[in-house]
């Protein structure tokens, strides 16, 4: 029984260490108090804020944007990768398009997105989707192309159409890689949703953060940061569970 919790404890160690260093810096460091409140103060403040319904609304808004943006990015990234693997002409075009579009910082286009899609959720979701789609596309495309060819041959011989072989052989075979791409995209989505809310928003955790920063309420700045970190942990745990579920039987699971 003890060993079941060992990984969990192990994972908390470095985090505890970071918090310890933080506490020490806040207590004895030379940093201005205004810049680095103690962890205790931050955690109590975060708890207080969590009790506030308006703050919880901010959290809900951010989560909604994150989830829908990521979902769209996932769908688009996967669909395009499948298309690129299926069709040689689409592949040539998509490869070139991705090469051209991927390195563009979408954040620079954000002001234009606002004008086209408004100040509300749509423009932020679009931004998250745009940034999430690329890592997923790249991972899925490369993963699908690296699939052991004899597996596909075996399926095609059994009468699988190219499409069927793609979905039921190549995709499962590439699943570990695709999931890794999703994991990267997930974290990028977290960053981008905050960034978009920091640039222009009237609600969401990113707004809470930037509002606190502008008004020099450092402690309120830390609360959203703590929440993003917690969200990262939560997503990671969920992701690992999903991975274990999906990758039953895989040699590397």
């Amino acid at each position, binding site marked *: 029984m003890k060993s079941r919790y060992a990984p969990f404890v192990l994972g908390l160690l470095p985090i505890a260490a970071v918090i310890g260093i933080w506490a020490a810096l806040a207590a004895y460091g030379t940093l201005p108090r205004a810049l680095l409140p103690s962890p205790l103060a931050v955690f109590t403040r975060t708890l207080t804020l969590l009790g506030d319904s308006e703050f919880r609304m901010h959290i809900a808004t951010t989560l909604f944007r994150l989830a829908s943006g990521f979902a769209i990015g996932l769908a688009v990234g996967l669909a395009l990768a499948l298309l690129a693997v299926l069709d040689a002409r689409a592949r040539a075009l998509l490869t070139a398009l991705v090469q051209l579009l991927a390195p563009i910082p979408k954040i620079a286009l954000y002001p234009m997105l*606002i004008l086209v899609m408004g100040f509300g959720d749509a423009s932020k979701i679009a931004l998250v989707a745009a940034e999430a789609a690329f890592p997923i596309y790249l991972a899925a495309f490369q993963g699908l192309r690296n699939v052991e060819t004899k597996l596909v041959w075996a399926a095609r011989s059994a009468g699988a159409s190219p499409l069927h072989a793609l979905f039921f052989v190549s995709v499962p075979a590439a699943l570990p890689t695709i999931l890794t791409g999703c994991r990267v995209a997930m974290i990028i989505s977290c960053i981008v949703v905050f960034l978009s809310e920091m640039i222009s928003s009237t609600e969401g955790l990113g707004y809470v953060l930037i*509002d606190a920063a502008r*008004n*020099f309420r450092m402690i309120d700045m830390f609360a959203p940061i703590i929440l993003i970190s917690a969200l990262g942990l939560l997503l990671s745990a969920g992701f690992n569970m999903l991975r274990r579920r999906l990758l039953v039987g895989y040699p590397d699971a």
Partner: protein
Amino acid sequence: ATGPALAQDVPTIRIGWTIPAEDTKYLMMKRPELFPALGSAYNIEWVQFQGTAPMAQAMIAGAVECSTQSALVLANGHLQGGLESYVVASHVDSTPGHFSPYWAVREDDPIREVADLRGKTVSINVLGSGLMGPLTMYLEEGGLDPRRDIRLVELGFSGSEDALRSGRVDAAVMNQPFARNAESAGGVRKLFSTEDVLTTMVQIFEVCSKAFVDEQPEVAEAYVRDLTSAMDLVLADRAQTIEVAASVTNIPVPVLEAYYMTENDFERYEGGAFQFDALQDMFDLYTRIGMLEGELDAQLFRHPTLSAPLR
């Protein structure tokens, strides 16, 4: 502009700046040869920021010694962030007879007065920025609650015109140089100006941290002297000022020509003299409408000697 042998002994100060409208600094950046002390008595490492709030944070963090500031950020930086600093020179202000930021609506829009703004979307450069003060005053005088009766969205000055014309917002805040572009293109009209609420507003000014001023008074003094003479040079030679501003901001010269240093531009004071009274008025306004917690004395930011003009 300095020999490498000399550079070692010369102290370097880090100065935060933004665009636009800090002509004194642009001149010091682009024409250091006009300032004998610069490079011999001290050196400057220029660090550009986006907005005054990050610069205040950088000053609190000790990452820069001096920076451009605005009234509300300065006050909050002091009250919330514990920033101890002095205002040493003015950059630009809004005064009667000069440009003041204003809110514009579309020409054909039926919005005529405050009450018409109910339920409309209004833009502001930064939620909780200094312009929030005059806007709040204006709305409250018309019986509107800025939190409930309008939808306030954050949109940088540069995006105002587009957002207004495309109908994304119903009233947009205008500032130079974007105001002048919008005016010349037509189709928009002024709804109300900050001038209607506050006749004089200090817009941006130079601030140095107390720690720096106390530790290196000679350097600080040399810097303020140079700011003073820079402002004199700016006011003396419009063509040069425009040329320098254009090269820093990349705004085309004709655009600047059209308004720079005219009555449609902000006021620049002789020698960069700073109006502490106007700052006090603004503090009081912010306190009254709750944007500042408690009274704040503008004299706190006044150094007994170190204040432009220093000649």
